[in-house]
């Protein structure tokens, strides 16, 4: 019996602006993926919507053809995430497309597994401040990324026992802002460390996985992932405690 024809892929836009270099990727219904990068969070100009405009034109489609927008939601640059989330909410309102929030750790992990060909585990350390980091452990299975434990803020220097367990057998993906000594302290437990490098294409792939597992979210529920309360509030509490 002949196999039923497979559904064409959704026209899917991914937005990754959690770091200084932003990127967008557009998957068309013929399977082609177009990609663009641009500097993010500049004071003089904002290139996210112009980049989307250029990519959509390159793909030869109208804005109304967008069916899905995946957004890398952080933790990361507040400015970049704010622009991305606000833009995505408006795209949903203007085109009726669905929205998928993708934790930026998933984007980082997806790219790292793709580039390295590794099939193990990673621990993504982000939003470092003082002695704490936002940690997300992700494992690569045949079905894609698996996050067995919730992500969260952990004291990593000195690392707690729980942090050591999270590091166990994983590659640590941490940027230069990771607390000094953290990587050395984990070296006996982890497989090594590497720099995280998100990309819009990885956001596209991670977004498809999130969509398959949890479905889209209403625009009102698309928000950046804030690891902490605003710093001014923390200082206020300290001053008034």
């Amino acid at each position, binding site marked *: 019996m002949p196999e039923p024809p497979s559904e064409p892929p959704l026209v899917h836009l991914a937005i990754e602006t959690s770091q200084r270099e932003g990127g967008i990727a557009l998957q068309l219904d013929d399977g082609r993926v177009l990609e663009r990068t641009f500097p993010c969070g500049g004071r003089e100009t904002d290139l996210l919507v112009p980049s989307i405009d250029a990519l959509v034109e390159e793909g030869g489609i109208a804005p109304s053809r967008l069916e899905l927008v995946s957004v890398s939601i952080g933790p990361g640059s507040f400015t970049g995430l704010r622009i991305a989330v*606000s833009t995505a909410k408006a795209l949903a309102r203007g085109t009726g497309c669905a929205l998928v929030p993708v934790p930026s750790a998933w984007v980082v992990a997806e790219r790292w597994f793709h580039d390295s060909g590794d099939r193990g585990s990673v621990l993504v350390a982000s939003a470092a401040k003082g002695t704490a980091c936002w940690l997300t452990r992700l494992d690569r299975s045949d079905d894609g990324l698996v996050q067995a434990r919730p992500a969260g803020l952990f004291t990593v220097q000195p690392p707690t026992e729980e942090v050591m367990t999270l590091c166990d057998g994983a590659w640590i993906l941490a940027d230069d802002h990771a607390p000094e000594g953290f990587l050395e302290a984990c070296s006996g437990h982890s497989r090594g460390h590497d720099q995280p490098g998100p990309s819009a294409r990885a956001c596209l792939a991670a977004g498809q996985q999130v969509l398959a597992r949890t479905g889209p979210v209403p625009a009102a529920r698309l928000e950046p992932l804030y690891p902490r309360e605003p710093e001014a509030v923390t200082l206020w509490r300290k001053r008034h405690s």
Partner: protein
Amino acid sequence: MNEPRQPTCILAIESSCDETAAAVVRDGRRVASNVIASQHELHEEYGGVVPEIASRAHLERIGPIVDRALLEAGIDLEDLDAVAAGVRPGLIGSLLVGVSFAKALAWSRGLPFLGVDHVESHLLAGLIDRPEVAWPAVGLVVSGGHTCLYELSGPLDLRLLGATIDDAAGEAFDKAATMLGLPYPGGPELDRLAEDSGAEPEVELPISLMRRDSLDFSFSGVKTAMLYAIRGTPRREGGRTVFERSAEDLAPKQRAVLAASFRHAVVAALVRKTTLALEATGARTLLAGGGVVANRLLRRELEALAVARGLELRMPAMAYCMDNAAMLGVTAHERLVRGQRDPLETTASPTTRRGR
């Protein structure tokens, strides 16, 4: 005689500080909807606007606020001719939310995007639902973030004449109210106390005039004088500044007198500089806008000034004094009918660009 206005339907979005707002404005003068979500409850505890809290709240609220503005106007996106947003000045994190939303919405519907100046739009709030004004005009913007005087030869032809060199008048009112122990946001509370008590401005506070011919403002001196009037002369004690008393020691009548005295001093400075600007420009109209224009003494004094000089005075209705998106829609209309558009690269700016 008023010329017929070119029909337009514009969605405008405001997010420059702590109000998330959206409005639909028809033909540049008729407000079909004007939705404002204030964040006062979020900032009250801190006695002022916390920028990061404001940005987060804008992002949560902007979608529902835009939906409500469209619903209340009885239109959908296909009825719009343009989408506008306040792009400057303001808190950068807050502005970015509105600007990004407006640009993406405009792009997704193939509509023009217009980025407008929030402060200059305060001046045009007085044109809403009213006949055209006679130009040239002097414009006074008085709000929590801005105190400026402009000369206008048309709705978009502005020249900055003067501005505050330190605190904005609204900021000074809020700080004086905090000194008096009034709840946040204090400016309107101070006005209410001064007005409702009927207290006379018996305490002499300095009316800052800078140089006699200057059209700039300064409110830091009157603020300091208010602090000393409330708490007495400060002295150094063990490396700390100690005051003779606290605001809680004041009797209700003293508190009311101080509120009336502060209001009198600030309003007197605003009116004197405005008078100077009117004399210098020969304006036929006085436009006033911004949250402090809701202050009842200022309204009365500006009305008296206009009568005395035979001018037309345009002050916005109370609903358009505070930060709102309808006023942005008026400015956007004026730009749209002149064929102006802004590129999608446009971004937010914390400061205004107009120099003297």
